[in-house]
């Protein structure tokens, strides 16, 4: 965990309303593990005083790349950053994805910025598996060439059917699991909207697979001090069977059996 003044190297709009920003961050970039994030200080308007968390999409020597979507005050201000600008990064933070088990078939499931969170895992997993990626429409499907370049098979699902299967990303996964999984045991790694993560976890629990979910919670400090980013997790040692975990510290990645989904407690 380091605090570093990073320099913007390149910053361009990508598809689906996303932007890619490449930063020179020699102290942080080489130490990022798959699924970890950085906490970024933006020169945002007065009503967004906190840092903002972003998964590290790619690293290359002393540089790291983020893939983000302007959704609010902080991220909209972020799009104004020009090459040469200096921004403060805190990272790498969090407990990322574990190394894929050698006796399992790695399956990645991504929605939204999920592809950004999963790419490093794909690159460092040692061997290629399959990636399922979903989006509202064809333009929302990011990073397919990157995964293909790593030798991963990519299956796309879009809600409007403009690319790949029409439907949810889990529909594409289900179809594959029903007909192509055969006797392999998958190990799932997912990042995306809550509903998707939950659906992935339910499948894993029903079939006895392992599924690692990267959770998204609004954050304060990013380092475990403020107790903002809590997520209900199972805790057999507690009389009620659950406790709060800090997504920034114990997460963002949790095995699906750890999570207590909000409306089933």
């Amino acid at each position, binding site marked *: 965990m380091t605090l570093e003044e990073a320099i913007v190297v390149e910053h361009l709009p990508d598809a689906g309303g996303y932007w890619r920003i490449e930063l020179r961050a020699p102290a942080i970039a080489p130490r990022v593990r798959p699924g970890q994030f950085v906490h970024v*200080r933006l020169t945002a308007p*007065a*009503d967004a*005083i906190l840092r903002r968390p972003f998964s590290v999409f790619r690293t290359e020597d002393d540089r790291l790349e983020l893939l983000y979507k302007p959704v609010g005050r902080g991220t909209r201000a972020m799009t104004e950053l020009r090459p040469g600008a200096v921004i*403060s990064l805190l990272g790498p933070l969090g407990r990322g994805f574990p190394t894929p088990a050698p006796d399992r078939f790695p399956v990645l499931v991504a929605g939204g910025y999920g592809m950004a969170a999963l790419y490093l895992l794909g690159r460092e997993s040692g061997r290629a598996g399959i990636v399922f990626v979903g989006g509202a429409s064809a333009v929302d499907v990011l990073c397919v060439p990157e995964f293909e370049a790593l030798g991963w098979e990519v299956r796309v699902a879009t809600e409007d059917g403009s690319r790949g299967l029409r439907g949810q990303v889990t529909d594409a996964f289900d179809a594959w699991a029903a007909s192509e999984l055969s006797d392999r045991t998958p190990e799932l790694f997912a990042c995306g909207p809550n509903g998707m993560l939950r659906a992935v976890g339910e499948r894993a629990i029903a079939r006895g697979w392992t599924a690692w979910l990267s959770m998204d919670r609004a954050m304060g*400090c990013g380092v*475990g*001090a*403020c107790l*903002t980013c809590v997520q209900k997790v199972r805790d057999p040692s507690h009389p009620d069977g659950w406790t709060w975990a800090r997504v920034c510290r114990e997460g963002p990645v949790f095995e699906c059996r750890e999570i207590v989904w909000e409306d089933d407690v």
Partner: protein
Amino acid sequence: MSPSTEPSLEVRLGSLVFRNPVMVASGTFGYGPEYAELVDLSALGAIVVKGICREPTRGNPPPRTVETPSGLINAIGLPGPGVAGFIRDYLPFLRRVPTPVIVNVWGRTVEEYGEVVESLDREEGVHGYEINVSCPNIKEGSRAFGVHLDMFRRVVERVRAATRRPVIPKLAPNVSDIAAFARAAEECGADAISLINSIPAMAVDIETRRPILGNVTGGLTGPAIHPIAVKLVWEAARAVRIPTIAMGGIRDAADAIEFMIVGATAVAVGTANFVEPRTAVRVVEGIRDYLVRHGMTSVADLTGSLRLEGLPCGG
């Protein structure tokens, strides 16, 4: 180095000596280890840990924080490991840090405050107690400790009876006469006072028409409240002879120096830790630079150095 270039930053609070007047505020720095990789803990005046009560507590449901113009509302709700958990999980680490540790204490009853302090008082490595009577969520019956003088006195007296270590009641900001609480703390034997805690606040999502915070209401902190804190610190510090520890919206050395000029002996950095973890260390450096620039030999010369000549006494 000549004394004029290396002024003394040391401050005293009862029997305690701090190497400098800059602490980190309770609830904004965890229990110490969270920031240890980023911040040189030995450069801090003191570490004030997150509020501790008798039993482990979970705190409020999320969302627990929301940003507002130049501020942050939090409704964390005092989750924590309880006094035994704190002693077991965090005190061993803190004992190895060469910086005084002040434990922020709260209870649901007067008696609980006393018991928590008694348990901690048996331990090495705890250097003082900040008594949190001002959390909006704790009250006995319907009477919140922080805004009723009689309840406030009872808590301070009970804690005072439990320890010879420094006792620092933390005053609630939402009272009309902060000086009365400061004086009550002094009369009940407190070694110092600290203020301000967060100011009761609320935010609503106008699309869903629901409160944004899981707890409905919370407390406002950060730069937005700094001018309110300066006024309260000025009033409280003038009312007592015991030292005042000031907090509320410190971003930089200037904000800290402002607090000291109106009467604070020490300060604590809160919300700014989340934004710039090294704020407290930078504040120490900034105070040193200021003292040198103004030819002051000791940080104590800053305390209460407000110049009011020719002005109405205000208030």
